[in-house]
């Protein structure tokens, strides 16, 4: 009697995990975790992770307000996804084969398109010829004109060639990945920002990120505000940030001037500064820093 319920439970759990968090494919450019596929971006946003879009949109270049794919994940976001088994690195493609592979594919597609367009062009010419012949000899009908028409159509079919120069070529503006563009990939490899050398601080950042995300906040990087994270009560597209989170370990000492600096900045931009430190036994301690109002 007891065995079946246990088995059912065991069967249920993996199904639930699978349905709640689809696995996204990370394209690792050196160590930068990038997401290229639209379904991955949607999945990640719906699970509360924001990331940062990096790419230029082909129709609106030369501006930084609206950017396109790829989405760059914060190191904390990548780690959270990996821990939940919701992310895996996409297999790296062989660099040498890719160029020729793409070229071959392009040439095959162009040939296919050429054949299709030739057929359509021939159809066009035939119908034009038909129209011309029937309109010019509209009143006349009879076997003779029909035969002449058939003859001319046959001749057209035999002699018609679709010139290559008239081929309409489709340029695809949506591409996934940088596999075709070696220089851009090399650039990303070289300029990836230096990871923090400090691993206690990095661990503290991750613990704080996980705790705040668990409480339902959305977090983005806070480079513009001198902190570690900007904490939003909901999706950043709908809300202003409430907090600037500064992550530190409990025992590291910070200069009073830095505390005053970040507190003053926070009050200028109407955000509360949060000093966040994970305790060794689990919970994260938060201290809110506010202007006292005492002039």
């Amino acid at each position, binding site marked *: 009697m007891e065995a079946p319920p246990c088995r059912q439970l065991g069967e249920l759990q993996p199904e639930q995990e699978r349905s709640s968090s689809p696995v996204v494919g990370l394209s690792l450019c050196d160590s930068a975790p990038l997401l290229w596929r639209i379904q991955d971006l949607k999945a990640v946003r719906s699970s509360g992770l924001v990331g940062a879009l990096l790419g230029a949109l082909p129709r609106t270049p030369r501006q930084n307000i609206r950017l396109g794919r790829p989405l760059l994940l914060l190191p904390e976001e990548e780690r959270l996804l990996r821990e939940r088994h919701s992310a895996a690195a996409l297999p790296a493609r062989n660099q040498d084969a890719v160029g020729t592979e793409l070229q071959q594919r392009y040439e095959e597609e162009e040939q296919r398109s050429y054949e299709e367009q030739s057929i359509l062009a021939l159809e066009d010419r035939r119908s034009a010829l038909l129209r011309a012949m029937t309109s010019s000899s509209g009143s006349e009908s009879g076997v003779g004109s029909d035969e002449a028409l058939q003859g001319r159509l046959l001749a057209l079919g035999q002699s018609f060639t679709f010139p290559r120069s008239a081929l309409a070529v489709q340029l695809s503006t949506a591409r996934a990945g940088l596999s075709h563009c070696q220089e851009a990939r090399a650039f990303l490899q070289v300029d990836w920002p230096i990871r923090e050398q400090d691993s206690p601080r990095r661990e503290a950042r991750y613990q704080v990120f996980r705790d705040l995300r668990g409480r339902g906040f959305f977090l983005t990087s806070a480079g513009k505000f001198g902190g570690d994270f900007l904490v939003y*009560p909901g999706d950043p597209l709908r809300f202003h940030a*409430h907090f600037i989170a500064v992550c530190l370990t409990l025992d590291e000492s910070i200069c*009073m001037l830095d505390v005053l600096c970040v507190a003053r900045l926070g009050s200028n931009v109407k*955000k509360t500064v949060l000093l966040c430190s994970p305790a060794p036994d689990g919970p994260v*301690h938060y*201290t*809110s820093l*506010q202007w006292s109002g*005492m002039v």
Partner: protein
Amino acid sequence: MSGASDGAEGSAEKAAPANWILQHPTYQQMQQLQVEDSEQIYTAFLVYMDLTEVRRWKEVSCVRSPELQVVLLEAREKDGAPAHTVLPLPVHRRLSHRSVRHVLDRGLPMLLCAVASDSTLVYQRMTDGLVTPDPPVGPFEDLGRRQHRKRRQQR
């Protein structure tokens, strides 16, 4: 800044400043708290003077923090107001989050007071937990596009 009055008094006579502070009963009381840090005692005294003479806070008392080895002040803004813990520190000092948590563990709302070498004081409120900031104050006007505004002004 509130430290200005102290500074003016101090610079008037070169010999007097150290003496009068050393003879002040509250300063002597702080010294007896067995805190080895004389710079911090002096800082605490400046904050004491600011709270009592300038801001006229009530029931200002000093107490030793065993974990931090510093002098803390306890005071109320008015009679009946909740008591605050004030942590006075020189501005070039370093501070750890753990020390802040020790002071917060006293259970009273906490004020951190940073004192500069010219006696300027700044108070920062520190609270446990996530305190949502005050929302922006209305009334709110929909500004629309700048062009519309310009056109309206031109008419």
